[in-house]
């Protein structure tokens, strides 16, 4: 048994920056209710966390707290991604001053704490740390969804999210408990060693445990059949929170699934693949088909995010390090596409929330419509956007793993999904406007949109340039 030392803390610098900022925000909460100070502080913290995470040791993986957490290429990738998500979400949260506001300091503190949980989930090497990190993320998420307590639909969305979330946590925990019982450990490396050493490949209890853990994590990424919360939560939450959840929660869940699948249950890859392939098929099918009938933009994006969870899982079904890095690439580009699409919704305000609000947007605001078109093309997966390169790598990895029917299904559903996104494009470019010209964006929202659009374009034109550091666990 070893106790923690200062060098252990060096593994957690990005998380410590975020938590420190949370504490300062809470201390100053009374003073910064009205000023945009909270947003600026959160933005600085997010950038600092991203930079320190990105600069972390290149010399090799480093382990802290007796094997509980690690800094390696994999965790660094996700920490930078989460920091970017946080920064964009903070920018998107900046409102026009006349709009009603949730308590600013608490809102940003919860965003930062949720991001801390996401980062820890990506670097956890132990089931216990993973569980606590995911709980930290989801508990903050429940509150963020319901933070506008005066809106009945926000209450309702938060309650549904909370009920299903705590149910899923209980399933995840039961799976962890069984894994602990079967392998005698909670550390990923020890679990893998125990499974290799004792030949438990066909042990039914272990299969139950894998199924339960996969279900619990599938909830976090909103994969079918654990998706029921997503449309309600995204629709009921304010748009910036929905964007943060769609991007961050998904990235963290995929990071955890990837690490567990490739490290802890390495010898069980076939069982894990079978479960993940099933989740992927259902998610892609249901997400693509149900999105066709949506008229609420946030709900449409929610079903789109369900379908995208399915595409991202395609990489993990391969059960190989290459597959895991394909999924990481997908998660990376997806985060920016979806934050961008939500950003346009946010910029349009009330009007952006229903599909009809997009009628004739191109005539009124050509720039805004063009940016939206870019994100829609990326979500469909049309070259030369990042959406194409992302889909390409995951489908390729599914083919390499021998899941050819799955790959064909993914391609077909991509074509179907084109109808969903092009419906919005048609409304923007080929219909007469019915509503007044929307007001100009807040500067912060424009900045976030520019960043997201740049990543989406660069990722499409030079696919290797941004994702080359997607190192598998």
């Amino acid at each position, binding site marked *: 048994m070893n106790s923690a030392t200062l060098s252990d803390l060096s593994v957690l610098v990005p998380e410590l920056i975020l938590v420190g900022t949370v504490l300062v925000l809470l201390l100053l909460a009374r003073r910064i209710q009205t000023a945009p100070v909270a947003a600026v502080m959160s933005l600085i913290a997010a950038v600092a966390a991203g930079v320190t995470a990105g600069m972390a040791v290149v010399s090799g993986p480093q382990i802290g707290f007796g094997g509980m957490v690690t800094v390696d290429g994999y965790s660094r990738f996700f920490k930078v991604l989460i920091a970017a998500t946080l920064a964009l979400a903070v920018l998107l949260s900046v409102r026009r001053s006349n709009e009603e506001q949730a308590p600013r300091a608490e809102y940003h503190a919860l965003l930062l704490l949720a991001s801390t949980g996401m980062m820890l989930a990506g670097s956890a090497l132990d*089931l*216990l740390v993973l*569980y*606590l990190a995911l*709980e930290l993320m989801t*508990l903050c998420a*429940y*509150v963020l969804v*319901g933070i506008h*307590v*005066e*809106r*009945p*639909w926000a*209450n*309702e*969305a*938060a*309650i*549904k999210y*909370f*009920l299903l979330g*705590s*149910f899923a*946590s*209980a399933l995840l*925990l*039961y799976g*962890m*408990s*069984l894994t*602990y*019982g079967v392998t*005698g*450990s*909670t550390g990923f490396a020890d679990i893998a060693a125990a499974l290799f050493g004792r030949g438990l490949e066909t042990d039914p209890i272990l299969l139950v445990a894998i199924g339960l853990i996969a279900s619990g994590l599938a909830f976090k990424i909103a994969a079918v059949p654990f998706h*029921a919360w997503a*449309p*309600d939560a995204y*629709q*009921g939450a304010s748009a910036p929170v929905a964007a943060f959840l769609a991007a961050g929660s998904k990235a963290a869940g995929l990071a955890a699934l990837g690490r567990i699948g490739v490290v802890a249950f390495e010898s069980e890859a076939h069982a894990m693949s079978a479960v993940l392939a099933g989740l992927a098929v259902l998610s892609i099918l249901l997400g693509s088909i149900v999105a066709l009938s949506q008229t609420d933009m946030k709900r449409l994006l929610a079903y789109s995010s369900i379908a995208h969870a399915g595409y991202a899982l395609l990489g993990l079904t391969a059960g190989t390090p290459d597959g895991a890095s394909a999924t990481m690439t997908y998660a990376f580009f997806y985060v920016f596409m979806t934050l961008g699409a939500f950003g346009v919704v946010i910029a349009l305000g009330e009007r952006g929330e229903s599909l009809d609000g997009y009628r004739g947007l191109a005539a009124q605001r050509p720039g805004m419509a063009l940016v939206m078109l870019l994100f829609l093309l990326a979500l469909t997966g049309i070259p030369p956007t990042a959406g194409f390169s992302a889909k390409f790598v995951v489908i390729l990895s599914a083919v390499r793993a021998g899941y050819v029917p799955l790959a064909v299904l993914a391609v077909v559903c991509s074509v179907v999904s084109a109808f969903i996104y092009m419906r919005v494009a048609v409304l923007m470019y080929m219909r007469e406007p019915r509503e007044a010209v929307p007001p100009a964006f807040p500067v912060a929202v424009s900045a976030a949109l520019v960043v997201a659009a740049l990543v989406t374009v660069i990722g499409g034109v030079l696919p290797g340039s941004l994702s080359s550091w997607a190192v598998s666990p």
Partner: protein
Amino acid sequence: MIVPVGAVLGLSAILFGIGVFGFLARRNIILMLVSVEVMLNAVNLSLAGFSRHLDDPRGQILALFVIAVAAAEAGIGLGLVIALNRNRPGAGVADLTELKW
């Protein structure tokens, strides 16, 4: 060990099943939360059983953290219920129709 680990695990599985049934069948938010608590108790029971069987304290530590998180969840869950109740009295999931279920 005088209490066989298998019996503890069997009991925990049965309690977990009861909790799952309660969560899926009940239509009252508070009782759904109570069902989740029953599930968490079942998990803790299995953790304590494994801990004893393996002669390893980790199971008990994990159970302690589960209790801590359950307390946090209860705080937030009931806060949400109170906020909902201010807007709309009565706490049945069946009433939650503002958004599609």
